[in-house]
């Protein structure tokens, strides 16, 4: 871990100012991923702006029928918030499928969006990695890539996005609210994270001087028919090999709207809106779910050790949708 200076501003404008005026500055809130990466010399900020005490720690109505999650509400407080449990149980379940109680007590909602990949090579500074050291090469493509991406990867990077919470937020069409010295902006969730392309060092579209202030949830929470299915190598406290956030709006047995977001398969929460739309008007049957799973996975590409994810993801989609529709 390299040396860094530290400041603890008391309001958002001061925080934004702090991060803009210090070289190589980063915000720290929960710290559960940033400190982890700093101890491995993967991230080396020269200044940390501690935002953990800013007044962004409330869950409120957003005036549009949905909830606004303050960026600094902890994951645990979000998952166990009565309104979240009632209106967005998919989000609660996704959060509780991730990490451990201790980490959920520390990690914040804003920070969760900024979690970095678990790719072994990204974490090990002895090996080349384009995400950590652009231009050094991707070790995973010809290496041990069991946990890596099958969708949307590039020749430069096959890392996956590690969050569970974000998979639910993607399915819910959340909006990320950010601010900087240049003013406020809101980013649709689908545009927040990005695919690696030729710049895998960039996980998302947030500017370095921008701060996440809140996450807006739309009114529609799919509380009735939803599932968060997480498949991993142990029963708890492990990252997803594949996860699925499935949400259905049903009229009788007819699907009015379907949302399917995948984790563990791509550099960002993976959605295929065309495939989802194909379910509209169709009955909720296993056959229809298999068909949509095939559409979502159709472009998937496996590597030496993660071929299994292609079939697993398909089956997970079918299982999650079947559970959401209460077929099983």
């Amino acid at each position, binding site marked *: 871990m390299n040396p860094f200076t530290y400041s603890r501003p008391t309001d958002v404008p001061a925080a934004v100012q702090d991060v803009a005026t210090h070289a190589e500055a980063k915000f720290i809130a929960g710290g559960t991923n940033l400190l*982890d990466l700093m101890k491995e010399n993967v991230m080396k900020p020269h200044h940390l702006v501690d935002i953990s005490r800013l007044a962004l720690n409330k869950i409120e109505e957003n005036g549009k029928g949905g909830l606004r999650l303050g960026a600094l509400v902890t994951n645990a407080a979000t998952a166990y918030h009565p309104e979240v449990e009632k209106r967005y149980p998919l989000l609660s379940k996704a959060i509780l499928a991730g990490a451990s109680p201790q*980490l959920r007590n*520390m990690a914040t909602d804003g920070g969760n969006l900024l979690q970095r990949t678990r790719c072994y090579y990204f974490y090990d500074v002895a090996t080349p990695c384009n995400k950590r050291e652009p231009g050094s090469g991707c070790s995973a493509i010809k290496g041990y890539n069991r946990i890596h991406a099958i969708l949307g990867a590039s020749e430069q990077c096959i890392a996956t996005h590690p969050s569970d919470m974000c998979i639910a937020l993607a399915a819910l069409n959340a909006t990320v609210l950010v601010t900087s010295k240049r003013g406020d902006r809101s980013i649709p969730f689908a545009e927040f994270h990005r695919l690696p392309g030729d710049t895998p060092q960039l996980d998302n579209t947030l500017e370095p001087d921008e701060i996440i202030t809140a996450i807006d949830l739309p009114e529609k929470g799919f509380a009735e028919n939803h599932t968060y299915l997480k498949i991993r190598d142990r*029963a708890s406290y492990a990252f997803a090999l594949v996860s699925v956030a499935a949400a259905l709006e049903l009229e009788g047995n007819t699907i009015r709207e379907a949302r399917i977001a995948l984790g563990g398969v791509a550099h960002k929460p993976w959605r295929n809106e065309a495939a989802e739309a194909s379910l509209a008007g169709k009955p909720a049957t296993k056959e229809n779910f298999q068909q949509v799973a095939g559409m979502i996975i159709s472009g998937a590409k496996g590597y030496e050790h993660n071929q299994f994810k292609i079939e697993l993801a398909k089956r997970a989609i079918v299982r999650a949708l079947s559970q959401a529709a209460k077929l099983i």
Partner: protein
Amino acid sequence: MSNTVQEKTTLAAQPLAEPLPVHLRINGEDHRLQLRPWVSLLDALREYIGYTGTKKGCDHGQCGACTVLVDGVRINACMTLAVMRDGQEITTIEGLANGDKLHPLQAAFVEHDAFQCGYCTPGQICSAVGLIKEGRAKTRDDIRELMSGNICRCGAYTNIVDAIESVTGGTI
């Protein structure tokens, strides 16, 4: 075949940050320290103050051995900076017993043989204190899931669940 490999490092020493005043209230006692910002809460406890009951098992939030309670909430002390906890109330394993009288969870861990080497034990017990306070574990399966942030390499899990259940009476 041979080739030359060079490690990519920032090869110039940077200036060190000045120590900052940090006030931690640990087990009811005030500790006023001067710490550089890069000191984790865990290292502050173990190396700078002397509370070695809180253990370092991975230093990366992956094992739970460093679990302490901050303002009553269980967290991993390795994944937070001491300076970020300025002014907060920290409870470690050393603060649970009342004099010679063990906390009910401590007594239950002994009675149910809920440890072997004992290294994960302070973290397990602090985690269980947090678990009970959170009030979310209604069943044995809930305890298992909500104690999964504490790895026990000796494999005392069934006894850990027994010990916690004996204190909560089955439900929380």
